[in-house]
């Protein structure tokens, strides 16, 4: 079975919620929409206090090309334009809306019928990109890069294939897995739309082999259309990283930054994104809800929810039996790359793939000791870097050497720190070095 070539680790999978069908979460009382829930410029609010809004109505528009529109997921009244603590842990500008009823914009098609691509022969690639852009779709795997930007590659690069990222290599998370089992047809149409938008005739759906039911179902559905191949992959973290996934699926390696994946002909989109694209193009439904896994070993019952964006995470946790007494950490996302949240009142955003509850005893790092030079971090690094060396350079603030040792290639996957027997805070130090070096490079280039 295929996989990527360098490094990687295999953390305990703990897919506790894999058998739980997607449940529709209850509406919140107040929905909160941070203006910056994507990579790029924050969106600009177009509503003001006291305005009435409906479900699917735009409330903030993209603040630039690399940015995304934001839509209300609820109907009600704009309570205030204020701030809220988001997944980053900081207070960020946000729109608060008091929920009243559930009135949708009339143009949204709420039927469950599948609209196939043949039903819309008039659609051009351009139309699809415009529709995606208009619907505020970003990468739903967690990276939250605006989807339309990837579909408009810089001049000179030629996309050859679209790869749908359905590996879900983070432990615990099962949102993508459930989405495939319950919405396979929509995902196939969404993939075809993305292929058409990118102007390519080859699409791949990459799934790790720990989801055999999803592989089987997607293969069955893919046989009914042209150009989509389902690629089962060996379970290995960080296979969902863009560069690792391209290497695993088509055997090409994207050169060091600033090269983009499209330089080797690949466009990667998350499987949730493909579903959102289907809904936006075929059902006129902008992005305002997503599937979120709520999980953890101590949680009463782990679930997958279809959640309106802006719902506080505490409400989802309550729906799973409430926050256990011995909770030490709440993570937005998976355990390898997710962010520890300072409070459970953080709203679900476009990039929220999961909420992970960890017991207090699982929440603390063991004390670090000196590096024993075992080279395990070097073998684990999927980018071929030497984390022990980079972290030592960061400690002595030797930024020049860090740049030479290619710290900017680091994808912050955490394999090095995961594997280190001396419990060294490798990624903390590498991250510090990476951001410092990026700053140095930036100021050098603007000179």
């Amino acid at each position, binding site marked *: 079975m295929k996989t990527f070539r*360098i490094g990687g680790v295999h*953390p*305990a999978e703990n897919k506790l919620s894999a058998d739980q069908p997607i449940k529709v979460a209850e509406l919140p009382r107040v929905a909160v929409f941070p203006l910056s829930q994507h990579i790029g410029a924050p969106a600009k609010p177009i509503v003001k206090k006291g305005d009435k809004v409906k479900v699917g109505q735009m409330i903030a528009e993209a603040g630039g090309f690399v940015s995304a529109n934001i839509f209300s997921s609820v109907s009600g009244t704009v309570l205030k334009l204020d701030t809220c603590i988001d997944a980053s*842990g900081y207070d960020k500008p946000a729109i608060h809306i008091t929920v009243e009823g559930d009135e949708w914009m009339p143009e949204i098609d709420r039927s469950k019928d599948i609209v196939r691509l043949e039903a819309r022969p008039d659609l051009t690639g351009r139309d699809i990109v415009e529709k995606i852009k208009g619907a505020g779709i970003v990468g739903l795997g967690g990276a939250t890069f605006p989807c339309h930007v990837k579909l408009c590659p810089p001049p000179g690069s030629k996309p050859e294939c679209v790869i749908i990222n359905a590996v879900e290599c983070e*432990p615990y998370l099962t949102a993508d897995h459930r989405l495939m089992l319950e919405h396979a047809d929509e995902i196939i149409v969404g993939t075809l739309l993305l292929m058409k938008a990118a102007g390519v005739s080859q699409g791949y759906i990459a799934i790790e082999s720990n989801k055999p039911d999803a592989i089987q179902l997607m293969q069955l559905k893919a046989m009914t259309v042209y150009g989509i191949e389902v690629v089962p992959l060996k379970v290995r973290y960080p296979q969902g990283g863009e*560069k690792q996934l391209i*290497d695993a699926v088509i055997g090409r*390696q*994207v*050169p*060091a930054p600033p*090269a983009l994946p499209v330089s080797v002909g690949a466009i990667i989109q998350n499987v949730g994104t493909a579903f959102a694209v289907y809904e936006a193009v075929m059902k006129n439904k902008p992005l305002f809800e997503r599937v979120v896994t709520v999980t953890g070993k101590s949680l009463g019952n782990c679930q997958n929810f279809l959640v309106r964006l802006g719902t506080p995470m505490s409400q989802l946790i309550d729906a799973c039996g409430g*926050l256990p007494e011995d*909770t*030490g*950490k709440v*993570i937005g996302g998976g*355990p*390898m*790359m*997710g*962010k*520890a*949240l*300072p409070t*459970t009142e953080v709203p679900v955003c476009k990039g929220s793939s999961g909420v*992970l509850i960890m017991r*207090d005893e*699982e*929440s*603390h*790092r*063991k*004390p670090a*000791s*000196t*590096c*024993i*030079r*075992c*080279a*395990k971090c*070097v*073998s684990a690094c999927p*980018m071929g*870097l*030497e984390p*022990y060396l980079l972290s030592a350079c960061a400690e002595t603030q030797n930024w020049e050497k860090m740049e030479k040792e*290619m710290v900017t*290639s680091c994808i912050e996957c*955490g394999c090095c*720190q*995961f*594997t*280190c*027997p*001396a*419990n060294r805070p490798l990624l*903390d130090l590498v*991250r510090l070095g990476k951001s410092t070096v990026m700053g140095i490079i930036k100021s050098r280039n603007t000179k």
Partner: protein
Amino acid sequence: MNKLTVSLSPHVHSGDSVSKNMYGVIIALVPAMLCSFWFFGIGAITVTALSVASCVFFEWFIGKYMLRNPQPTVTDGSAILTGILLAFNLPSNIPLWMVVAGSLFAIGVVKMTFGGLGCNLFNPALAGRAFMLISFPVQMTTWPTSGQPFLTLDAATGATPLSVMKAAVKAGDPSLLNDMPSLPDMLLGMTGGCLGEVCAVALIIGLIYMLAKRIITWHIPVSIIVTVLVFSGALHLANGMYADPMSQLLSGGLLLGAIFMATDYVTSPMTKKGQIIYGVCIGVLTIVIRTWGAYPEGMSFAILIMNAFTPLINNYCKPKRFGEEVKK
């Protein structure tokens, strides 16, 4: 509700630890240790016990009273490991005070003055052995033949395979090699030598265990063994006075060194490429010293020399970076 912990990712850990690795190596050494007890009896047991005890004592004492380490390092198992490895490199009839002196040198000078585990340049056990070889050349090179469990100081001593080999090269006379023990005897350990070196089978069991537990990778031991076989095979073909490759491989500390000494985390290179270069150089140096050098055994010096080159190798051998091969 208690306060939520906020820390950066990753939020999970493999559960691997320094002491797990150290005790893993110690477990891998158990078969060879039992063999040494069987072959050399009381002498082996006393030397091993004393060596371990003094290494642990020096580690604890220096750490506590001289370095004043806030985190004690005695419990991580590395001092026990050094003690066992040092003992494995000694003859079983060595005067006991020399064992203590060797341990003090290994832990006190080679390891702790550089800052303790992880910072030392040379393998402590091997450096300890080299120190003893230079200071006490006679006692370090008279070995009792194996299979005399209850004799200690006055044990019958005998020629080792290595000294036979050396004599053959010096005299230029291949017929001297007829005094070599048979290969099956060497494989099982029925020859003279240091405690831990003699039983090849036990050492190989240790290697398989460490590979299976992913404590080490194959790169260093395999590259040393292959180099030794190829290089000494070529010499043997060129002139019969040079010992055949299998005898080279099974005699002296070669397997012990290739499996347990050269693979020491701290003093070996970090990248696969570097590890192979390191292994090949050790193999070549060992045969060169064995054949033409002043000492019959070249393994420990070869490893110590390459320990000194490890920082250089680390500097020049970088891992294959992602995306390196596809430059279009």
